């Protein structure tokens, strides 16, 4: 019985003019384009300088700031007001204002002042930008200091040397971090949305009635709906591996079978969720919106873009029931750090529970009577 049902499902997928295309094209689109877009790194901060001093020192300072690599000098404004206009029109992100008598104050009074104004509509960018800028100013002042003052016995000054080591991704390549997570998103979109539209689609088309009058058991029916998405998921995953390798040279650090194993459980879970929603919906439109509602929240709270540990406690507690979070973790850990199943028992238990729960629910909520 299952064999015929599966044959029917596959025929439906292949006959559909749209589905095979999206299954094949979507992974390419997502993995080729989005890793380049998703980057929080703060660089190329547009700087507007207001130099009221026009001295040797102010010039040197500006040169030092520009050569740091973080800043791009957009303009040298005659006064603060016109610099502010640049910020208002988004031409500049940060203003460095050098007051009159900067050089004179520094040398005569031994103390000078600078003004930094940062656009903090994006707080992270504005905050980091101004921190970089004051860091550079600090370096500049210590340079000036060592030039003017004889170097005293430096060994007496306690010095803590900080050595930084970046494990797993020494070039700090953000794309490497995003690629495995985008695979999770791909599987969620394809293996979650398509089943959500499936049963309700049959309801709307009227073919459901026909299946309901046959002696198929609920279990066989749900299984016949699940298996195709499993296979689709594996195809999508395999394509993704290929793209990740060819485009980004990314090979899983851990064993590839670990990924397939977890993916198998995850797809069962997310497809199960889709089927549950499909069972309860009356129209495809409704199913789509309910699914959309859940997936959006699940994605945003999965740690894909922002770390879960930075969320407030109540939000972290909500993520305990987010299957995406666990699978996201598995993908990144296995792909980038080479973790094995032994290190991923928490995730295994969580994902297993979700898969079991959603599918039992899907079987229970499927009504053969209309």
């Amino acid at each position, binding site marked *: 019985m299952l064999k015929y049902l599966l044959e029917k499902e596959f025929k439906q997928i292949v006959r559909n003019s*749209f589905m095979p295309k999206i299954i094949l094209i979507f992974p390419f689109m997502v993995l080729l*384009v*989005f890793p380049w877009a*998703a*980057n*929080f*790194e703060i660089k*190329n901060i547009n700087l507007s300088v207001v130099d009221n001093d026009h001295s040797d020192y102010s010039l040197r300072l500006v040169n030092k700031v520009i050569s740091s690599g973080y800043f791009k000098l957009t303009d040298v404004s005659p006064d603060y007001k016109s610099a502010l206009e640049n910020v*208002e*029109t988004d031409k500049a992100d940060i203003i460095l204002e050098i007051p009159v008598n900067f050089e004179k104050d*520094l*040398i005569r009074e031994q*103390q*000078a002042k*600078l003004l*930094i*104004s*940062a656009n*903090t*509509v994006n*707080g*992270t*960018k*504005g905050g980091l930008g101004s921190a970089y*800028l004051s860091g550079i*100013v600090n370096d500049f*002042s210590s340079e000036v*200091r060592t030039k*003017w*003052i004889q170097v005293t016995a430096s060994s007496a000054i*306690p*010095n*803590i*040397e*900080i*050595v*930084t*080591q*970046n*494990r797993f*991704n*020494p070039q700090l*390549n953000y794309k490497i*971090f995003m690629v495995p997570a985008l695979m999770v998103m791909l599987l969620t979109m394809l293996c979650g*949305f398509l089943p959500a*539209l499936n049963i309700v689609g049959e309801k709307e088309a009227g073919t459901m009635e026909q299946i309901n009058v046959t002696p198929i058991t609920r279990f066989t029916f749900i299984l016949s709906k699940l298996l195709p998405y499993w296979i689709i998921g594996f195809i999508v995953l395999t394509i993704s591996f290929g793209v990740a390798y060819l485009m980004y040279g990314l090979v899983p650090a851990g064993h590839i079978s670990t990924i397939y194993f977890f993916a198998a459980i995850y797809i069962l879970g997310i497809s199960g969720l889709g089927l549950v929603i499909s069972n309860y919906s009356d129209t*495809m*439109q409704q199913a*789509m*919106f309910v699914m959309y509602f859940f997936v*959006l*929240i699940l994605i*945003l*709270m999965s740690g894909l873009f922002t*770390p879960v*540990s*930075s*969320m407030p406690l109540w939000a972290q507690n909500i993520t305990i029931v987010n299957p995406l979070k666990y699978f996201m973790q598995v993908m990144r*850990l296995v792909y980038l750090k080479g*973790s094995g199943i032994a290190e991923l028992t928490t995730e295994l238990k969580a994902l297993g529970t979700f898969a079991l729960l959603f599918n039992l629910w899907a079987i229970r909520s499927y009504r053969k009577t209309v």
Partner: protein
Amino acid sequence: MKQFGAFVLKEFRHIFRDKRTMMILLGMPVIQIILFGFAITTEVKNANVAICDPSKDIATQKIIERIKANEHFSISTILNNPDQITTLFREGKTGLVICFSERFNENLMHSGHAQIQLIADATDPNTATTLTNYASAIIASYQQELMNQSSVPLRISTETKFLYNPQMKGAYNFVPGVLGMILMLICAMMTSIAIVREKEMGTMEVLLVSPMKPILIILAKVVPYFIISCVNLTTVLLLSVFVLGVPVAGSLFWLIAVSMLFIFVSLALGLLVSTLTESQMAAMLISGMAFMMPVMLLSGMMFPIENMPVPLQWLSNIIPAKWFIISMKNLMIKGTAVSSVIKEIIILCVMALVIITVSLKKFKNRLE
């Protein structure tokens, strides 16, 4: 006009009958804005750090105290052995390991030289750099204290002013983005599906034989979603002001005017999708996946556009939400005059015109 009113009423009834969709349409913005305002932050807070301290002396204790007191860190593990670091990282339990050298204080006091290793899990480069920077700053401040400099000569002090968002709340950045996403979602997705649905069910034919002009029939379908979007706009604005504390710094009139323009562009986009597709499935997949992902990633809502490679920056120009978000940031957060967003308004107007023309042309052809 009376007929038109009746059609609009019919569409309203359709939407209201489906309680679940209605709840999502009106509830989604509330949940999104709360999540973005409170839970989703690009800032790194309470990150788990592990400490490896073989010397356990006064200097290391003092530094550890400072790390403990810092809101960015929470110390999760004390390691006895550096060999455990890799396992710790593989279990995903920590983002940073702070490793003191042996006989830390002794070395520091006698030879004036001691070492701290900061080993970061750089799979997430953003978090890794941020954590390393924070930890370095804490260590540097301890060193400053040790140096006990009474009067450092030739000092340049900097005064920093944070414009528009002095408390640096994440919500200021996200509210315009969430607004863009919600309006786009509701307008484009809903209209596209609503029209294709009638086509697929065959009821479109029935509507078209009525004495109403086709354009009015489509308009009647669009009106309820326009109104729902306006309700959502109001909800989100109220929540931002009263719950998230994001002010409307500029002119409320222009804010709403530009939002309505954007709603119109999104509705037109939905219309375009519905003329291009035959089935609900296709319409949903196009508007749900092919629109939403680019809006989320390329509109500048989450990731700064200037960081992207040039082809993507160019691509971002055709995303209406980008221009909407820029004008919202200016009008709402910065409080600049409408003259600062003339360019954005013109671009949105042109987009609306082009999309409407193309989709109406296509639509007419299909019906003949």
